[in-house]
C-alpha cells in the first residue's frame, strides 16, 4: 500500500507541477508579496512604525490563514475526484493495480505538497520583504518556520475535509465554498465551545498574536478562547486523518459515473 501511495503521489505531484492551476495559484499567492512590498514602502516613508515581524504576524498572516490556505485546499481538495470525472480520466487510474484508498491518499499527499510549496514560498518571500534589513538575523527565520508549520497543519486539515467532500458529493465546490468562507469565517468568532467546531480556532490557538489581544489589529481577534497548543495540534491532525480515512473509504466502495 505504501509503495502504491508513493506511485500515485509521484504521478500527481509531477502532473500538478505542470498544471495551469498550480501556476495560477502561485501567482495568486504572490499577492502577499505585493502587499508586503506596499507595506515596506509605507514603512520606509515613515507612515508605519510597527516592526516587520509584527506586521507579518498581525497582517499578512490573516491573508494566509483566512484566505490562502482555504482557497488552495478548496480548489485542490474538491478537485480530487471531480477533475477525473469531468476530464473523464478516471478509468486510467481505476484500471491500474492500485488500491483505491492509495489513489486518494497519494493524490492528497501530492496536493498537500504542492499547496504547501506554493504557500511557503509566499510566506518566505513576504517575510523577507518586510524584515530584510541590517537588523535581520537568521534566527528571525524561526518565525517563518513556525508559521509555515501551523499553515501546513491548516492545509492538511482543510485539504482532507475538501477531499472527503470530493469523494462524497457530485458538486463539492459549492459546499466547500460555504464551509471555507461561510462556516469557518463565522463560527470561529462565536463564544464558548461553539468556536471549537471550526478548523480556524485550532490554528489560531497555535499563534501568539491570536491568543493575546495585544497589537494594533487585536480587535480582529476578539473572543478567541484558545485551546491548549498540544490539544490544537492533535485535533488538527485528527481532523486530517479522519476525513482522509473517510474519503479513502468512500472512494473504495463508491462507483463514479460520468455525466452521460
Amino acid at each position, binding site marked *: 500500500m505504501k509503495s502504491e501511495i508513493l*506511485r500515485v503521489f509521484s*504521478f500527481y505531484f*509531477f502532473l500538478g507541477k505542470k498544471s495551469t492551476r498550480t501556476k495560477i495559484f502561485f501567482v495568486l499567492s504572490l499577492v502577499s508579496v505585493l502587499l508586503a512590498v506596499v507595506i515596506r514602502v509605507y514603512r520606509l516613508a515613515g507612515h508605519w512604525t510597527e516592526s516587520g515581524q509584527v506586521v507579518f504576524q498581525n497582517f499578512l498572516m490573516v491573508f494566509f490563514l483566512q484566505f490562502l490556505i482555504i482557497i488552495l485546499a478548496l480548489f485542490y481538495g474538491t478537485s480530487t475526484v471531480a477533475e477525473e470525472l469531468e*476530464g473523464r480520466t478516471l*478509468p486510467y*487510474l*481505476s484500471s491500474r493495480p492500485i488500491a483505491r484508498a492509495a489513489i486518494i491518499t497519494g493524490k492528497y499527499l501530492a496536493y498537500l505538497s504542492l499547496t504547501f510549496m506554493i504557500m511557503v514560498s509566499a510566506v518566505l518571500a513576504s517575510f523577507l520583504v518586510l524584515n530584510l534589513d541590517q537588523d535581520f538575523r537568521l534566527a528571525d527565520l524561526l518565525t517563518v518556520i513556525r508559521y509555515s508549520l501551523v499553515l501546513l497543519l491548516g492545509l492538511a486539515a482543510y485539504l482532507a475535509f475538501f477531499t472527503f467532500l470530493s469523494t462524497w458529493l457530485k458538486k463539492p465546490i459549492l459546499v466547500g465554498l460555504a464551509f471555507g468562507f461561510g462556516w469557518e469565517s463565522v463560527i470561529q468568532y462565536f463564544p464558548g465551545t461553539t468556536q471549537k467546531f471550526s478548523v480556524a480556532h485550532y490554528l489560531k490557538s497555535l499563534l501568539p498574536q491570536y491568543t493575546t489581544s495585544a497589537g494594533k489589529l487585536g480587535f480582529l481577534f476578539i473572543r478567541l478562547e484558545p485551546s491548549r497548543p498540544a490539544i490544537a495540534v492533535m485535533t488538527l491532525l485528527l481532523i486530517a486523518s479522519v476525513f482522509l480515512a473517510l474519503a479513502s473509504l468512500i472512494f473504495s466502495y463508491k*462507483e463514479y*459515473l460520468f455525466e452521460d
Partner: protein
Amino acid sequence: MRAVIEARDLSRWYGNVLGISEVTLEIQPGITALLGPNGAGKSTFMKIITGQLKPNIGEAMIYGERVWNNRRIFRQLGFCPEADAFYEELTGFEFLTGLLSLYGFRQSECRERAEHVLKVVELYDVRHRQVRSYSRGMRQRIKVAQAIAHDPEILILDEPLSGLDPLSKRRVIKLIKEFKAHGKTIVVSSHVLPEVEAMTSEIVLIHQGKILARGDIYFIRELIDTHPHMIRIKSPAFRELARILAPEDYILNISFNQEDQSVIFETHHRDRFFNRLNDLVLESDLKVDEITSPDDNLQAIFDYLVGK
C-alpha cells in the same frame, strides 16, 4: 479450457435506464468483437469487466476471480476507454511513463517501455509534444498505447477505431492482430461491421443490453444478409442503371428520385449487387456520383433481427 473472461447473468441499470440485462458470456483467448449500435450496452459490459462499474446482478470474473477492486487482475488488464480524454498538459511520453509508473516499474523501465510502445504506435517522433496538440488519430493511438504498454494478458478496447482515418485504422487493426498473435485475449467493441470483420471472425451481437447472437462472422453475415438492404445510387444515368440491373434475381424493388437523379435498389444480396455494380461501372461508361445506403447502419439491421 476455462474461459479468460466470464460474465454470469450480468445486469446493470442506470436509474431507470437499462445498461445490460442478463448477459452471460465466456470469452477465450483471441479477438472477440462486441458489435452493436450506440447505446447497446457494449461500454457498460466493458466497464464491468474492467472493474469500473459494479453489476447490479450477476458477476464478472477474470481468470475465475471477481474484477471489482482486484489489483491482481488489473495488473494483467489493459483498458482503452472510449472517451477522448487525457491529461492534456502532459506530453505523449510523460503520459505513458506516468501511467506505467503506477504499475511499480522502475523509472528506467517506464522510459524503455514508453519508448518501445511509442514506436509500435508510430508516435515516437511526436513523443515530446503535448497530448493536447495531437490529432484525433494520434490521440486514439496513444490511448491504445497506454493500454498495451505494460504488456497485459487481456486487452479491452472500447471503440478503438472510432474517429480514425483509414490509415490510422489500419495501424490499430494491425496492432490488435499482433497482440492476438501472442496468444492474448482481446475484447474490442464497435458499431461498424466492416471494421469488426477486419479484426476478427468471433463476434457477439449486443442490442438493447442483451446478447442477441454469438458466432463467427459467417453466421452473423448470414443473419444480416437475410435483411433487405437499400442502396441509393446517384448518377446522371440512373434510369439506365435501373434498366440494366432490374432483371437480376437479387433485386427486390427499385424506386426513383427524379429530383436528385438517383435510384434506390432494394436487395437481399448486397455483395452480389456490389460485385455486379463494380463490373458495370468498369465495363461501361456509366458515371456514378454517389453510393449510399439509407439503412446501412447497424441499428436498422438489429431492428430487423429483433423483428421490429
